[in-house]
């Protein structure tokens, strides 16, 4: 969508156009789906209050996102939500460290082993997906956001890093950790 002069607000399309985006943005920073969901609602309602202050110089989405950003910072100040998510990420990080010895070699009990018969035929894949879906629920919010943007929206690494405020090396570390954990979870739960 290219706008040459003034961007306009279209509140009747806000939910369709921006709700999922704002939700993911919040979720990636807070890791809590309920708080994130409430925030999306807050953002839209707050935005309606200040429709008049929108000058049309930024896009509607950028404008809404900036409102969301302020609200997230407010929550950070209360810290509770943030602390839970940071805890979760730290635990996740620590768990991943155990996968390898200090020289980088797989540690004995984390070495990948064949899962099923490794053919991944249709029936097996369905079972795998069921397990993997459960495993994905244990990931920190930021991993899910990265995966959603990477695999569902087909965003480039550059875009994802920009939107989630990550460095590129941080980004691959997140993917690496997430994949290691998902693979291990799949192996553990596959009978």
């Amino acid at each position, binding site marked *: 969508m290219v706008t040459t002069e003034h961007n306009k607000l279209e*509140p009747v399309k806000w939910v369709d156009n921006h709700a999922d985006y704002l939700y993911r943005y919040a979720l990636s920073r807070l890791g809590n789906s309920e708080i994130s969901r409430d925030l999306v609602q807050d953002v839209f309602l707050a935005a309606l209050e200040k429709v008049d202050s929108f000058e049309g110089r930024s896009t509607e989405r950028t404008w809404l996102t900036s409102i969301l950003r302020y609200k997230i910072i407010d929550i950070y100040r209360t810290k509770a939500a943030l602390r839970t998510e940071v805890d979760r990420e730290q635990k996740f990080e620590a768990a991943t460290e155990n996968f390898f010895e200090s020289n980088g070699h797989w540690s004995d009990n984390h070495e990948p082993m064949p899962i099923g018969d490794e053919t991944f035929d249709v029936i097996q894949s369905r079972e795998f997906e069921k397990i993997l879906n459960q495993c994905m629920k244990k990931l920190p919010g930021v991993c899910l956001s990265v995966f959603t943007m990477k695999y569902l929206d087909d965003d480039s690494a550059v875009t994802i890093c920009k939107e989630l405020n990550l460095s590129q090396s941080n980004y*691959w570390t997140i993917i690496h950790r997430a994949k290691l954990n998902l693979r291990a979870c799949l192996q553990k739960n596959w009978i």
Partner: protein
Amino acid sequence: MNTNHQILYDCKNATFLLEKKSDVRLSVKESFELNLHLASCSVCRLYQSQTARISTMIKQILSNREIHQLDKQFKAELQECINTKQKNNK
């Protein structure tokens, strides 16, 4: 600079490079390290095939289950709420 010996042991680095490779072109050095490692490490070769399939499954799961989206009812109610409020503001 890693010696070849270190590269052969460094499964952590090799699996990291495998993930990176799915996004960007590796540098010559990275590519060399990864290939050298994979040639001698069957466990990481297994990881390579598993992680590729996991990517496909993640994609499948995300597109089927809308994990990261708000549910339709919530959205409908929210839009309704916006519309009402907008009318009242005018």
